[in-house]
């Protein structure tokens, strides 16, 4: 994957953008730069998407490049595959994680495998955007974390931005990638703001970044839990604990180098996610870091995650999601030496 090309247009004046607006700008710029980029899905047209990520694009690019499809997720992904085979770069939206499940067969059996099946002859440069995870007080089926399904599927690239700058840069990179990308947009972060000079370039989307340096323990987060990790680090400082915070950004591939280096430095780590723990993505993080860095570890890598239950109703969400309190309590369980 190469980072997206710099647009011909010069860097624009800084503006304050929400993550939703940054994603919108990324699609808009990609569509302006590359006529093969097309966008479709449920309600992405005149409405601009239920999270307004595609706001205004129908007006600018018209029905032929931005369209509301019939209401069928397998249909959306399946037709995107055909379009990609013919040289387009479709960007499609699944309205919520749980509504990507009807497209599961198309994603797992075709999106992930087409290049391999055809020995590299047929590539599928498509992006599947998924408003991801919970913490929005949503009713059932609106707050799932689906990443474990995608990361367990060879052939997929899975990324999740945690802030507006990454949202812009990583989405542009995903759109220009020749590989299909599952792009997980943390719903609870859509409205966080940042000042950006577009087109902003952040590090390549397949790399993790150290967001905050620390010496005692590494907190590994991605998407919605990055803010939780940063808040925890802040609180921990008061308790005299120095936390290093890593934003994975790329779930698959995993940046062993960056994360491994941090863990070797701190010798302690915990991974955070909203999804249930059992079989969750955190298991991969813990297992591979342990495999590769066992003799550097002073304690097992912890997983601080949702419980092994379906995502709860809004009034119980707060008991489910990993909180700084819960994380600090978990970290305190280690015997420091």
């Amino acid at each position, binding site marked *: 994957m190469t980072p997206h090309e710099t647009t011909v247009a010069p860097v624009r004046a800084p503006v304050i953008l929400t993550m939703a607006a940054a994603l919108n700008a990324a699609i808009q710029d990609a569509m302006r730069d590359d006529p093969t980029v097309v966008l479709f899905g449920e309600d992405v047209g005149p409405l601009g998407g239920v999270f307004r990520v595609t706001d205004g694009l129908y007006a600018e690019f018209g029905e032929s490049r931005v369209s509301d499809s019939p209401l069928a997720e397998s249909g959306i992904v399946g037709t995107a595959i055909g379009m990609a085979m013919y040289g387009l770069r479709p960007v499609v939206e699944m309205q919520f994680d749980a509504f990507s499940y009807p497209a599961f067969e198309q994603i797992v059996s075709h999106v992930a495998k087409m290049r391999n099946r055809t020995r590299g002859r047929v590539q599928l440069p498509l992006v599947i955007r998924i408003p991801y995870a919970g913490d929005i007080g949503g009713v059932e089926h609106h707050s799932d974390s689906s990443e474990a399904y995608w990361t367990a599927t060879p052939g997929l690239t899975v990324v999740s931005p945690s802030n507006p700058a990454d949202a812009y840069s990583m989405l542009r990179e995903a759109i220009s990638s020749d590989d299909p990308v599952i792009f997980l947009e943390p719903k609870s972060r859509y409205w966080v703001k940042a000042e950006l000079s577009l087109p902003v370039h952040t590090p390549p989307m397949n790399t993790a970044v150290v967001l905050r340096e620390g010496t005692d323990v590494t907190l590994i987060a991605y998407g919605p839990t990055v803010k939780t990790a940063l808040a925890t680090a802040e609180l921990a400082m008061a308790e005299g604990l120095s936390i290093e915070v890593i934003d994975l950004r790329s779930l698959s591939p995993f940046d062993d180098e960056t994360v491994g280096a941090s863990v070797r430095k701190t010798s302690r780590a915990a991974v955070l996610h909203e999804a249930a723990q059992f079989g969750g993505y955190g298991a991969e993080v813990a297992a591979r870091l342990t495999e590769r860095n066992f003799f550097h570890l002073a304690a097992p890598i912890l997983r601080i995650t949702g419980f092994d239950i379906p995502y709860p109703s809004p*009034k119980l969400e707060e008991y489910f999601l990993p909180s700084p309190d819960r994380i600090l309590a978990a970290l305190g369980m280690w015997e420091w030496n």
Partner: protein
Amino acid sequence: MPHHCDMSLNVESLVESTLTAPRPLRLIDDTGRAAPPDEAGGLALPDPATLLSLYRRMVVARRFDVQVTALTRQGRLATYPSALGQEACEIAAVAALGTEDWLFPTYRDSIALLTRGVPPEQILASFRGDWHSGYDQNAHRIAAQATPLATQALHAVGLATASKLKRDSTVALTLLGDGATSEGDAHEAFNFAAVWQAPVVFLVQNNQFAISVPLDKQMRCRTIADKAIGYGMPGYFVDGNDVAAMYAVTSAAVENARGGHGPTLIEGLTYRMEAHTNSDDPSRYRDAGDLEVWRRRDPITRLDTYLGAVGALSDAERADIRAEAEDLAADTRECMTRSAPVDPLELFDHVYATPHPALVEQRAFLEAELAEHAAAASSTSGTAEAGGTR
């Protein structure tokens, strides 16, 4: 050796009857007059007592719907998908069912639940964020309101098939939206039902929008009812704002199913008068003028006119019904003042019949955490507040 199966009903004539309805069937027209016979497709107008009871339930249901929408605007519910304008479909569906039958509703169909006897507090539990579903599914024979579109149609077919296998008389009726018919599951449900001759009725409320997406971006066929042809089942295209026609067709379909004659697809042509949910903004995608057109086709007004004209609805009865509706609205407002007792530890109790050991551990973990927080809170402020900070 016929290339297709023998069919117990004559498909040729079935196909023709489905196709001979380019205009929706109706019994009472927009203006509240009895529709001419050629629009009624041989259906008989239900008797005045039945119509009056349908009227009463529509009025009450609308009052509830309007009340809940108002409460939602006040921020008292997380979300509420209104069925304003769709009362004829919703009430006819419930009225056509016997107590032994099962209803498979969607998020949109709260007033169907109400009409089938679910108390407001229990209906609203999910929209208030208390629980994923707040009523006793078995007691009411109403499945949990479905969110993943069209998935419940298959559950209805399965339940109906089980009823048939057990030689019971239970029929299942499922509500679906126009948009939901695009999902693969709708197709599979229609097909399984037809092949298995399941006692099931599919009632598609064609309210002409799937959130923002209008019907012409959803499908291209002449009517949704025409889709029935492709499955070898009868299809009816009905004026979904005429409760008399909706009730007549749906009752016939339910009894047809009960009699062992298999499934029916019914399209009720109606209109979603409200936003998709409170978080939607219809001004972005539809013309306010359409609302006016459909307001003139209102299902309650037209039945009011009709019943008044035939002398079956007096002002006293109107007042009585209005009073019942206002009582319900008051109850609904009142129940919002009560907080449902949500217990965080129940999170672990219903995942499995016998919890997996990890859940037992996690329950104990949360229990300890809550106790610790309560202790900390009471030691600092004197008031116990459970739960972590985020």
